[in-house]
């Protein structure tokens, strides 16, 4: 079931969302139902579990564990269906805040800090992958175990201090890391790509304080504008337009 969890979103669609993926993950457990694979109980349970469902994909492991347990314990279908519906919201919002808006930017900024501190490429990549996946895999394993242990009473596991306070702690860490890492990352990007045969140390010296100060000032002004325009404009679109203008200017002048 754990390996299948890694592919839970493989058939994600706008109709049933994670539903078929959830059914796919639970299916091995359903083979243990009376009648085995293809039996009436198996078919009923698989049909039930493949209906509409949505959650943050890592936190869906909690639902997979809990629902597998409920099916094997022979809980009434109405109760299982009510539980499935009730879990969508909490597993979605908690996962989005903890993983997508917390752990992912935190890990990425840690890697950017390593980049800014002039770490080599393999080290930067390793920092990101090890830190991120420690959280990612840990969360999936914990979710599956907590769901299996708690069954339909798993909601109490979601109220633990780590999950309650984690998003806020990570938000503060993201803010601090961003402020440390971004000036250093700007500095390293400005050093340019070392072009042989010029030694890298000379490239470093070639980057003047004026260039760094200009980049920091531009970043601060544009960043403030983007914060003010919050939700009205996406940063990547602004970046695309600015770079297009720069390219046209450089080619046409």
């Amino acid at each position, binding site marked *: 079931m754990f390996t299948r969890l890694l592919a839970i979103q493989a058939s994600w669609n706008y109709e049933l969302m994670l539903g*078929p993926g959830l059914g796919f993950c639970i299916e091995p457990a359903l083979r243990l139902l009376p009648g085995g694979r*293809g039996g009436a109980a198996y078919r009923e349970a698989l049909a039930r579990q493949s209906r509409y469902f949505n959650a943050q994909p890592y936190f869906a492991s909690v639902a997979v564990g809990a629902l597998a347990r409920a099916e094997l314990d022979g809980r009434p279908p109405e109760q299982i269906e009510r539980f499935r519906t009730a879990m969508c919201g909490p597993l979605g919002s908690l996962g989005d805040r903890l993983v997508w808006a917390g752990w992912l930017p935190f890990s990425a900024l840690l890697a950017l800090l390593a980049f800014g501190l002039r770490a080599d490429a393999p080290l930067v990549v390793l920092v990101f*992958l090890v830190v991120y996946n420690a959280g990612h895999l840990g969360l999936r394993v914990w979710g599956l175990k907590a769901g299996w242990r708690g069954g339909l009473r798993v909601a109490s596991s979601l109220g633990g201090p780590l999950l309650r306070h984690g998003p806020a702690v990570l938000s503060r860490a993201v803010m601090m890391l961003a402020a440390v890492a*971004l*000036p250093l990352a700007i500095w390293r990007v400005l050093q340019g790509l070392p072009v042989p045969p010029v030694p890298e140390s000379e490239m470093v010296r070639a980057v003047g304080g004026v260039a760094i100060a200009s980049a920091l000032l531009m970043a601060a002004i544009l960043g403030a504008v983007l914060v003010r325009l919050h939700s009205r404009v*996406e940063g990547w679109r602004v970046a695309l337009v600015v770079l297009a203008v720069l390219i046209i200017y450089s080619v046409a002048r």
Partner: protein
Amino acid sequence: MIPELLSLLPVAIVGAVLGLDVVSFPQAMISRPIVAATLGGALAGDITSGLVAGAVLEMIALEMLPVGASRYPEWGTASVVGGAMAAEFYTLPGAAVVAIFASIATAWAGGWSMYGLRRLNGVWVRRELGMLEAGRPGTVSGLQLRGLTADLARGFLLTLIALLFWLPLASWVLSHWTLGRTPSHVVLAAVAAAVAGSAAWRISQGVSMARWFFLGGLVAGIAILVLRR
């Protein structure tokens, strides 16, 4: 033409695998720009160029939260393309700017391709709805396998088409490039850092003390910058 296509195949295969990681399998974030562009650069012969492109793209990608049904740029295949392009033209002053531009545009197209894939999955699900409702063994596995295969093909084709489109165009643009390396990189770094900074600010909105943490971090960052120079 055929030797050119063959030389692009390894990058397209990596693009396919990393495109698959974005959503379908295993979401270990090997598709994040800092990893994907570095790999693309390594494949094209210069890992450092790939890393720099990856860091810039990572800053820009920070604002995108891959939340549920929202449509967002697909950075996996796009970053492989960006890293490979940055490495391919790494001696030219505008290489990083052009590579990042191509990468963001590819990510945009990639977002649409993911939307198309999700619609296609929906068509397959609707077709199999009767079997799903009957709990037929093998139906969900079949849907999952079809989704995985289609996503792999999507990533492969997107990377290949993007490389075939952008490489000649970038070559032309860079042969007419007049700006120096430093001003090009000032704009590039500033835009990327602005997007990343505003993303961090938005993420932390409503969290008490977050702005003080930002201020403390900024002082530390600038102090390290001054000391290391």
